[in-house]
């Protein structure tokens, strides 16, 4: 199908975009890369009165690394993240994950801020900011606030963002030199949304471990008990078995592809494989 009719605005400044969202009274929708919003409009699952195109706002795009923090502008595209040697050096989880985000043509348009604002539970970027303990910067016409990733994702396609706010920036801590990373996702076809996925970061000595699962619940979720089972352990077979057992505490959700118990099983498989990568 084709999208229903709408008003289209393409402001050149962030201030102008925020004014349009404030005026829109909830009926204006920001358009970033459009790789999810456009299909949703074509399916008529989304029918905004006003589309506020963010693509002409240069101040919303770009990557800076300084003072131990990575700051990524919301409309920075996946292909720009992939091409940034500075980013991939500052955070080695990016080059592991990015090739698995959809397909090349989608990565040429899709943006990190759009993915985080949409909060698809099976998408990689929300899980990435969550596992890294990142922050999301929101702004409306009256001011700015920073929300930790741990508090940002509320449910399926539901976040802390209010309709008059934009995700303007994603902040992530620069990786420690010795920090370890693991990533695995289970898909039917390369680039598809994950049936189950896992991202892990751990200190060199395995004293601290953060684990995020995605594609298995209504949002990306921290696996706290599995983290506790692995933190301070030798990381061996007994520890990872205990961590996988500890997933029983989480609430898994079925989707069209898999029932809850399958999601639970696949989460364990993804965790085991991601952990193997942490140890290499």
């Amino acid at each position, binding site marked *: 199908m084709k999208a229903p*009719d709408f008003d289209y605005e393409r402001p050149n400044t962030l201030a102008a975009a925020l004014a349009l969202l404030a005026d829109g009274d909830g009926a204006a929708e920001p358009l970033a890369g459009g790789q999810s919003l456009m299909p949703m409009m074509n399916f008529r699952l989304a029918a905004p009165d006003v589309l506020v195109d963010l693509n002409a706002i240069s101040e919303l795009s770009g990557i800076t690394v300084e003072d131990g923090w990575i700051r990524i502008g919301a409309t920075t595209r996946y292909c720009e993240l992939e091409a940034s040697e500075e980013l991939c050096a500052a955070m080695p989880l990016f080059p592991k994950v990015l090739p698995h985000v959809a397909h090349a043509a989608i990565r040429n348009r899709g943006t990190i801020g759009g993915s985080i604002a949409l909060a698809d539970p099976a998408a990689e970027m929300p899980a990435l900011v969550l596992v890294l303990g990142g922050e999301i910067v929101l702004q409306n016409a009256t001011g700015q606030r920073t929300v930790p990733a741990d508090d940002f994702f509320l449910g399926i396609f539901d976040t802390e963002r209010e309709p008059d706010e934009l995700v303007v920036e994603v902040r992530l801590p620069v990786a420690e030199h010795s920090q370890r990373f693991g990533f695995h996702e289970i898909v039917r076809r390369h680039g598809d949304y994950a049936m189950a996925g896992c991202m892990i970061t751990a200190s060199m000595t395995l004293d601290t471990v953060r684990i995020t699962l995605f594609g298995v619940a209504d949002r990306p979720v921290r696996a706290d008990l599995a983290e506790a089972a692995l933190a301070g352990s030798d990381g061996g077979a007994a520890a990872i078995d205990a961590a996988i057992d500890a997933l029983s505490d989480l609430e898994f959700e079925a989707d069209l592809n898999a029932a809850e118990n399958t999601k639970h099983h696949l989460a364990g498989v993804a965790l085991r494989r991601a952990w193997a990568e942490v140890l290499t």
Partner: protein
Amino acid sequence: MTRTTRISLSVNGELVSAEVPVRRNLVDFLRQDVGLTGSHVGCEQGVCGACTLELDGRMVRGCLMLAVQADGAKVTTVEGLADSGRSADLRQAFATRNALQCGFCTPGMLASALEYIEKGGAPDRTAIREHLSGNYCRCTGYQAIVDAVCDTIDGKVSA
């Protein structure tokens, strides 16, 4: 009432100016308003890849962009890739290897494969399949398509 706006863009090197409904996507604009029917419309949800075309040097989904978003941009369709000779070797390889049956996916396959080739991609079957994973061929001709891409990279064809 359908809302419209005027846009100007370069299509295959020619300046095009038109009044378009803001809801019209880029591939529909190219097919219906400009008359370039090489880019195909398949799923209209970004899954099949048949509408893949080049926008400002990057291959994108023509169905996941509005025509109005291409205002001021440089668009190259499968026709433009052929006319400039950029896709000549790849097209010859597709013909030689029987890399198309019905041909519906071919414009998108050519565009996506050309991006891989022009970026210096290796004749590695797994990497080529991963790059083309966003393009569906319902005649199940992937083997021959990957053969054609490998042949082009290996310089085994001359158009």
